[in-house]
């Protein structure tokens, strides 16, 4: 259930990031009345937003660490830990934690012995390897005796939790659900527990589950395969080029110790924002939340990574030849979300691909009829570090990815050589404002957005202030940025070219 979100093809959080000045009841001032923030002594930030429409609340726990932070050789680690966070603590999910802890240490020792043999470059003893594997299984069975399976989520669900889930992106890890308001304290106990007191319970079985998740999302999906190869090609140095869910050889060898080390380093107060939205009163909720969330260890904000993707100077492309229908994806490196032109990229996406009025739809889908779906969006695959401005398209039947590519490039050329119209620019501003407003009436969506803005800007108010930046976008900005970014040398493209299925050789295994 803990799903991982590949931030597929929508343009990250900044797309919903504008305010509506005309709407008196829903501006920054009105939200300042509803929202209270508090930074606890351990560095953890609480954001409470009062929205008493119904006796429920939603929360979003936002960890400023994701798979981009996975150490070399351990891709998929942040996501592995996310799964662990559903397995309970020393107080929930166990019949006897002291005994379980000892048993888990034996699992780890057995697994280390197995891995050491497995990784031997020379002289691996297959018999010994099998014995060591059996020893791991035995140790796991011993530890399992103390487990009350899924008790953490069970208690949450029995108390009315709905939408129990989490996602790990490259930039962050986010946990969330909704609950009746009278379970606020229970939730605070559960949530602060897993942040501060995680236990590597059933880790290796969960690793198998994550491998299945990889097979589902990436290996067995044409689009998943395309995106993985595309990013691995577009980036040469930065971790944005590394498989989000982790390379199979690496995920399958992540250890519980590595996951717990990741937790220790990144799950510290200064790296966490918790937002609660719904039928809560800040004056009553804050003391209670402070009591529980003070359990989260303090710790220095983890150091920022040093890697900066070097400037791309050679155009790159990837061709996947397989028996599926064609798709096309291309991307250009762009700066991160703090760039002064950030809103200009949003304007480009809106004008190029928002709805049936957009340039790409009208040109490629409606008029030339070469595509059935086409979108321009950014940043991808993340926004914290310099990401890509991407174009994705699905050709119509009997049309090729080459036609699609040329059609997209023609639209890019127009952006570079002529100003957009007044109407287009005004439409972008109107629609972004309205979209922000529409998002304010949903507890879960609002909790996620507030936590994200509080993390990324240090102040949730930026959600409303970004309107100013949007209003300042000019036609000249759009032309300037288009010329800056949409250069052939800055491009990576990837597509699927359809070929007949492999000769129907021995294909009878499953069908006997």
């Amino acid at each position, binding site marked *: 259930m803990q799903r991982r979100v590949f931030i597929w093809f929508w343009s990250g959080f900044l797309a919903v990031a504008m305010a509506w000045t005309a709407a008196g009841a829903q501006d920054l001032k009105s939200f300042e009345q509803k929202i209270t923030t508090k930074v606890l002594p351990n560095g953890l930030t609480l954001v409470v937003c009062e929205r008493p429409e119904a006796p429920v609340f939603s929360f979003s726990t936002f960890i400023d660490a994701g798979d981009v932070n996975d150490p070399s050789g351990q891709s998929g680690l942040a996501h592995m830990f996310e799964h662990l966070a559903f397995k309970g603590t020393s107080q929930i999910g166990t019949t006897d934690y002291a005994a379980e802890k000892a048993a888990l240490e034996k699992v780890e020792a057995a697994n280390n012995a197995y891995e050491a043999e497995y990784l031997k470059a020379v002289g691996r003893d297959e018999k010994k390897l099998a014995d060591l594997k059996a020893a791991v299984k035995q140790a796991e069975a011993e530890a399992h005796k103390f487990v009350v399976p899924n008790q953490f989520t069970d208690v949450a669900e029995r108390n009315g939790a709905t939408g129990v889930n989490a996602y790990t992106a490259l930039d962050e890890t986010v946990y969330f659900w909704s609950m009746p308001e009278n379970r606020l*304290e229970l939730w605070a106990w559960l949530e602060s527990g897993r942040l501060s007191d995680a236990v590597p319970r059933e880790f290796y079985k969960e690793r198998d589950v994550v491998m299945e998740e990889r097979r589902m999302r990436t290996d067995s999906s044409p689009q998943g395969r395309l995106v993985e190869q595309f990013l691995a090609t577009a980036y040469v140095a930065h971790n944005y080029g590394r498989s989000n869910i982790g390379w199979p050889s690496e995920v399958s060898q992540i250890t519980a110790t590595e996951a717990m080390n990741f937790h220790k380093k990144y799950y510290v107060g200064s790296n966490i924002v918790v937002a609660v939205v719904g039928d809560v009163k800040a004056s009553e909720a804050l003391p209670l939340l402070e009591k529980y969330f003070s359990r989260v260890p303090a710790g220095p904000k983890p150091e920022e990574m040093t890697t900066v993707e070097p400037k791309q100077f050679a155009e790159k492309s990837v061709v996947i030849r397989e028996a599926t229908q064609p798709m096309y994806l291309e991307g250009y490196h762009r700066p991160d979300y703090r760039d002064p032109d950030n809103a200009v990229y949003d304007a480009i996406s809106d004008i190029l691909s928002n709805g049936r009025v957009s340039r790409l739809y009208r040109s490629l889908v*409606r008029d030339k009829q070469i595509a059935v779906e086409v979108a321009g969006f950014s940043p991808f695959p993340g926004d914290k570090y310099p990401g890509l401005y991407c174009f994705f398209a699905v050709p119509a039947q009997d049309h090729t990815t080459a036609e699609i590519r040329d059609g997209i490039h023609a639209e890019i050329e127009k952006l570079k050589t002529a100003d957009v119209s007044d109407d287009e620019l005004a439409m972008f501003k109107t629609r972004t404002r309205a979209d922000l407003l529409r998002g304010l009436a949903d507890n879960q969506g609002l909790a996620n957005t507030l936590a994200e803005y509080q993390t990324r800007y240090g102040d949730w108010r930026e959600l409303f202030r970004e309107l100013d930046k949007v209003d300042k976008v000019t036609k000249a900005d759009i032309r300037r940025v288009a010329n800056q970014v949409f250069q052939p040398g800055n491009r990576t493209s990837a597509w699927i070219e359809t070929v007949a299925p492999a000769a129907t050789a021995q294909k009878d295994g499953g069908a006997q």
Partner: protein
Amino acid sequence: MKSAIVKSFFAVSLAVAVLLAPAGLGAQQNKPWEQIPTPKLHEFKPQQPKRIELKNGIVVFLQEDHELPFVSGSVLIPSGSRDEDAAKTGLVELYGQAWRTSGTAKMNGDALDDLLEAKAAHIETGGGEDSTSVSWDSLKGDADQVFSLALDLLLHPKFNAEKLGLAQQQLAAGIVRRNDDESEIAGREAAKLVYGPNSPYARQPELATIGAVAVKDMDAWHQRTIGGKLIVSVGGDFDPAAMEAKLRAAFEGLPPVKAEPARKETFPGPKPVVAFIDKEDVNQSNIEIVGLGTDRHNPDVPTLAVMNEILGGGFASRLFQKVRTEQGLAYSVGGGMGFDYDHPAAFQVMALTKSASTVDATRSALAEIGGLTSRPFTQEELARAKDNILNSFLFRYDTREKVLAERVRLEFYGYPSDYLQTYRAALEKVTVDGLNAAARKYIHPDKLAVLVVGNGPEIKPGLDELKLGPVTPVDITIPMPGGKPGAGEKKQ
């Protein structure tokens, strides 16, 4: 074959029962979370929309909500794809697209796009299995104009061949791609096993059937359905008296609605079969175990909902605990007895597992299904399932939008307006005996079909190891009109 399935269910499920017995019995010393107080929930009376029945039979719902300055609405029209001519399968989907993109005599679809998008407003049309619809939303200040445009589109569409062609092209692209995604294949083919390949609930559009649809079919469909019992619903930031007057003026003058003829359908359910679809470019199998479900008129539905929760509902369900948590065989696993409003849904359990563990995962899932009748339900399971369902029940009506949507649904299918309350009361009364009786009545492993989509050569042991009878390959080749080669064999 029948007996083989039954036998293997019992054999496996007994083994499971023995294995499971020790788990979860370890006594926990203290449960700190049980010491945390649960205060009384704040008083809450969800606001019901105002229902107005016009003289001609059209029903209007008004749901005020002044939190945000928006107004949205929809008109629901009975009849959908299950009522279309089989030779023109896909007609309603095309209709749902071309209706909006064509527009009206006063304003064509492209002009509508320009006007609406500049206001961050929307008008959309859609075609579904049992209905079509027109919906709209806009900022409050634009609400009058957007409503009159939507009304014009509802009553006076002007279908055009070019936009129909565009919709056909979109749908055709979906058809030639429909074998690329494994889960799409599994879902589609599972429905065919349940309802039969030609059933209105499972048949699929083909290039030939969508090619047979012309503008005159759009006109005829509109003419036939627009006189049905429309349900109009409007929600948001408006003055209710003014809105009621406006809607009366718009809809009261229409002729009396024509009732839909009663549906005459039979649902024999699937044949017990092990069906296999080979897909060379995957390393994971999609397993679907399917049968016939029921509909919500069935008084056993509350009991079945509790049974579903126990079988495949949440983290603590039997399927999740066994196949995912204990065996690590799947990321995605779950399912249960489906119930639709006016026809039987499917019974469906699915699991996604690596090719090599296909047989293991299928056996495990089958054992959990069989276990519904062989492993009696416990008080603890009942209490947990009830807690899960009842304590989260208010999320069915925690926004005014949800309350409105529910009322429209109940009106459309002819259920009483207090359905949710009586449903909740019935859920509270479910007993262990009731669960056991329902399992005996509805769980028939010998009537289930197993479908696997996966990579044949990688599936070792093979599906024959299930010992459920011969494995039947399913041909999913996409028919190409004019004898062109099948999709996937065409070079660019």
